[in-house]
């Protein structure tokens, strides 16, 4: 039996919590299948700290990856195109995530 939280009289604000069980993680899985290096991200923020687009907008590449993993795909779609693909992030990533390819793969998967 599934419990429909939205019908409870004391509702939990859907926007304020990550409902991990209900989240659509299929996009994250599709991206990871195409570029497994995304699995290695440990969220250190080296990429976002020096990001060329991140200095000009609220684009945050680390957060993109995290939001994708949490199934908040709409928020990813909103900002993913800000990236200039300059590749500065690749030079910093301590885990060897192929960031440019991951960005392109996310775009590709989102547009499908």
């Amino acid at each position: 039996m599934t419990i429909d939280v939205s019908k409870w009289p004391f509702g939990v604000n859907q926007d304020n919590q990550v409902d991990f069980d209900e989240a659509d993680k299929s996009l994250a899985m599709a991206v990871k299948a195409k570029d497994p290096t995304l699995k290695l991200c440990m969220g250190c923020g080296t990429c976002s700290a020096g990001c060329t687009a991140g200095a000009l907008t609220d684009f945050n590449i680390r957060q993109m990856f995290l939001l994708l993993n949490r199934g908040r795909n709409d928020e990813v779609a909103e900002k993913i195109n800000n990236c200039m693909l300059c590749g500065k992030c690749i030079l910093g990533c301590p885990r060897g995530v192929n960031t440019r390819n991951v960005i392109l793969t996310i775009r590709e998967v989102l547009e499908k």
Partner: protein
Amino acid sequence: MSEYVFSPYVIPFTAGLIFVIIATFYFWIKALKQLDPEETRKVKENLFSLRIVPILFSWVKEVFLESLLHRKIFRQNFLLGLMHMLIAFGWFIAIFAEHIRLWVYTLNPIEPIYFPIFLFDFLRPVGAESAVGMSPAPMLFEMTTFMMVFIFLHDFFMTMILTGKALSIVKKYKPGLFGMTGGVKHNQYDKLIVMLLMLLFIPRMFAVGCSVYNYGDAMVVVNGISPSVYAFLSYNFGQVLGGLGLASYESVFWWIYSFCIGAFFVALPFTRYMHIPTEPLFIFLRKCGVSTGKKYTGFSELEVLSCPRCGICFDRCQLNTTPGMDVEVQPIYMLEGVRDKEPDEEKVFKCLLCERCEATCPVDIDISNIRITQREKFNENKFKKDTNRYDYLDDAGYRSNGGNADVVYFAGCMTHRTPGTKKAMNALLNKAGVKYMNLDAEDSVCCGQPLIVDGFRDEAQKLISENTKRIKDSGAKILVTSCPVCYNSFRKEYDLDGVEVMHHTQYLKKMVDEGKLNVKKTGKKVVFHDPCELGRIGGEYEAPRDLLKKAGTLIEPDDIKDDGLCCGGSLANTKLTNSEERAVAGDALNRLLAKKPDILITACPLCKKTLEKVSDNKVEIMDISEFLLE
């Protein structure tokens, strides 16, 4: 002399030839129709003006030197060049010589198309009227000195071809002698046509040998030279065939020969040998100033068809030569995919765009540009076009400097990761007393080249216009960048109204030449790593070398300039795995350090970072600016 000579065995040959001519025209017209209006204009402009004379002259020269003599391949490897020359030039000149023999005999330039090919049967010496060959009475000639010379030439050219073929067999088993690895995998059509080409000269020699044997006593001694000398191949081989009792099968051999060559022609348009009829047109258009630039056009189509799949690119590609690497993405495969309309994603994207292949392509195909257009095509299918994507740059709030700089320094995104270069450049500019400003010290905007090489040229325009605005606003007349990727972007993609674009190696050389900077000679043994984007793509090999010769002892490893190695860190690639990149970098580093330099010098932040990653403290790696500052 207009007696009509015919034998049914000419039909396969003639049919094949007509087929290949029609196919060639089909491909030519199709390509010409797809030319860009701008390209058509260029061709027409040249075609109907006096410029056509030098164009034709250099066209003939190039077709002769490259398509027939294969000069570029000779430079690559003597044996490889020799093999190609013997087959291509030998075949061409053999056919040409037989035409001359016929024309001089008939004094009629319009003879049936098949005539010169089967000339040994159709045109017989006096006294051989009733030889075995074909049924109608053939045309007869007196064995003059002229005829003797041409029979000799035929044999000589056939020997060239057969030697070439023999070399190609040696190449198959000992590719190393030809400077090749022999790892190219050809498709079955290509394998078939190589077989046909290999085969068709054998029945020809059998047929010609039988003919000459059947001439019998008509092969007389001329000017004291016996037929076993002037017809050293056909006469002597004929004697062997006659001795084996095969001479009576002469027409059978002519049939087999005709079939082989007919089949060769029919197969040709479906194989790599399509480059033979396409190349002359391709070279002509290039002489008219056409090249594959930013768009894939009919000309690109011709380029693709002109790829002979010789495999030289394959052997140059570091994704092939690096130990442990085995991917089929080289131009030979990529262009084949484009031709068959189905290049897969890996073939198009898994490439460093280092242009090592392009530097030695014997046909001079614009490989990288074709690859980029293919990437664009892929992206069009995958992504919605969104040229407003970077409109946020309008709100970036760039602060003007008041337009009073003489020089504007754009370090480049990557150079922010190698602050040593940035700091050294600032120190050197200060030392030289230059009035300069840093354009990208705070909120930088990418030059756009990473987007372009990934196949997003339209999207990159916004970045280009934003940077253009900032550069022009600086008031500077010279733009200096430390990143060769940016250098090419500014040079090729920007319209900067007379602002001179220089890579820092070029600008430092200018400063030294003008006496504004002094360089002290140190005893350090240095090796210079040519960054692909600066050298092969940017065309700058000498500026860094001039500087390094002044500041140290420059030693040159084997792979320099056009042969320079890619570090593997190229931004043009998104598909290489980390371990593959590391393998390419490690191999390149080992080859650069073969002569044990004290310092490895480069002039690209990406090369520096990538090589450092695998250096394991084996050698000090510096940017040229840091070295000069020391």
